[in-house]
């Protein structure tokens, strides 16, 4: 009983984070005072911005341009002009390739480097970030580190591209039983959270030691007696808390083999003797549709990319990743470096209203009040 009370207490406020108004702002406290005590230092900000955006220290002339400005407004103008200059520099291209490798946690092999090259190209060309989820061509460019340029490339893995969701290098690097590793990569990379992806407002008792907290109906995924893996097992943890989402997405990724090539049938195994190929009945019961989220059914990879692109969490995640990178904070998922919605709500709104251009978002972050105060 105690455990249920505890989980209900945890789940209720977490559920409130999902697309509903958050809790009221906490009263002014010591932490607000500390934030207010920060002072503007464009010189320090320039050094950090230069290292992040160009991978180099600012030149003495650049340092002087900011330091010799006679007042704060002139310093601000000089600083912002240099940020624009950095964003237009060929060295920014090099930095974006590295940023993209870390963003995607992919690279350093010819097969995988075309994925960060595509993301970097989208940023450098100031295209819509949503192209990484929806672009149908050109998703396998190559990056030349000597010239800091991209060469257009098509993935040619047997299917029309859907952004990076069908990237063969990504799919091969994340090949696994039931394609779950690919789904986890998608979730953590583009939605910035680990599974479980959705948490219901009201936990449901399903006969286990802890309640079921997914948003899909508990019986919407495969389990005994249908399916060879019992995702509805409740004897230890509640598998369905994560698998309610995992199983609704994974079938879309199961069509790609260990080299990332598309196959009409399923090409990922089930961890059973002789490693048989997975079947739809291993994921979902008959009649259940694949889906990005509860209430967002999708029938194919293009539908998934489109649904993800329409999800506010994807835009928030992209801005949060840029925010953490700019401020030198560790990874939002790996290191749980949280970025509360209130911290970046203006940045996210501008990102969306401005056409999802990540390079523009970087300019706004690097010139934001928080970035130039220490």
């Amino acid at each position, binding site marked *: 009983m105690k455990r249920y009370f505890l989980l209900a207490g945890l789940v209720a*406020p977490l559920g409130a984070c999902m697309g509903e108004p958050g809790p009221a702002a906490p009263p002014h406290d010591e932490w607000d005072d*500390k934030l207010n005590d920060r002072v503007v230092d464009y010189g320090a900000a320039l050094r950090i911005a230069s290292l992040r955006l160009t*991978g180099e220290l600012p030149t*003495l002339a650049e340092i002087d341009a900011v330091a010799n400005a006679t007042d704060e407004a002139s310093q601000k103008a000089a600083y912002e002009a240099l940020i624009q200059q950095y964003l237009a520099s060929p060295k920014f291209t090099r930095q974006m390739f590295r940023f993209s490798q870390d963003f995607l946690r992919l690279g350093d092999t010819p097969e995988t480097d075309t994925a960060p090259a595509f993301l970097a190209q989208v940023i450098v060309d100031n295209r819509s970030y949503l192209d990484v989820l929806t672009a149908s061509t050109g998703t396998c460019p190559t990056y030349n580190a000597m010239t800091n340029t991209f060469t257009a490339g098509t993935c040619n893995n047997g299917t029309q591209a859907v952004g990076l969701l069908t990237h063969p290098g990504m799919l091969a690097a994340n090949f696994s039983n039931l394609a779950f590793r690919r789904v986890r990569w998608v979730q953590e990379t583009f939605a910035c959270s680990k599974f479980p992806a959705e*948490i219901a407002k009201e936990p449901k008792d399903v006969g286990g030691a802890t309640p079921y907290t997914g948003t899909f109906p508990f019986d919407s995924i495969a389990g005994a007696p249908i399916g060879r893996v019992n995702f509805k097992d409740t004897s230890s*943890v509640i598998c369905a808390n994560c698998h309610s989402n995992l199983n609704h997405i994974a079938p879309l990724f199961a069509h790609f083999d260990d080299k990332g090539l598309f196959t009409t049938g399923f090409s990922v195994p089930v961890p059973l003797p002789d490693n048989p190929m997975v079947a739809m009945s291993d994921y979902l019961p008959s009649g259940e549709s694949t889906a990005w989220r509860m209430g967002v059914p999708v029938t194919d990879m293009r539908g998934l990319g489109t649904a993800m692109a329409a999800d506010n969490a994807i835009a928030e995640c992209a801005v949060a990743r840029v925010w953490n990178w700019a401020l*030198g904070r560790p990874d939002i998922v790996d290191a749980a470096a949280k970025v*509360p919605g209130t911290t970046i709500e203006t940045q996210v709104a501008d990102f969306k209203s401005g056409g999802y251009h990540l390079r523009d978002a970087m300019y706004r972050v690097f010139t934001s009040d928080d970035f130039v105060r220490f």
Partner: protein
Amino acid sequence: MRYALLLLIAGCTTEIVDSTTTGHAEDPYTSLEREQREGPPRYTSRLHSCAKMRVATLGNVLASRGVNLAATQELSAGRMYRTSAVALGAANYPARTRENIELGVATASKIFDIYVQAAPEIIAAIPVRPECARNGQPAQLFDSSNHCVESGFSCLIGTRATPQHLAVCNETIKRANDPETGKQLAVALLAAAAHTCE
């Protein structure tokens, strides 16, 4: 009490939604302790962290201040840099591991070692580096009296060197056994300190 603590840490964010229901979540007491020490996310998320300088960036900084990264001598800065990727926290993407930007003692020590070895090359190169020119004139790290000069150290640390920077620099030279050793120590010290955090 335990429930109250857990409820406290279940603060609402739009990004990280770890749940104790999965068995994969961070220990809530660790999370609570960290928040009490560092501040809540609404505070920490708006501050610069002290991120370790990325491996590639460190190489760029060294090269742009005159260090030969292709050097092959055993204790040369270039060789130390080239062979220290793991110690410097480089990424391992085939193992799905991002670059580690959290600064540990071992990594900081390695970076300082590199700057110590790099100091003679930096001292020789700063006056001829185009990045360090001011109004067409070369920057100097030291004047003829072995005092530290603002232009050279500004270029080394990437921001306008303050009187405090120069005081520490001069004191390091003064306390060394001889001026040349002091200059090398001063360059390594200022560079390592300034670039402790990217």
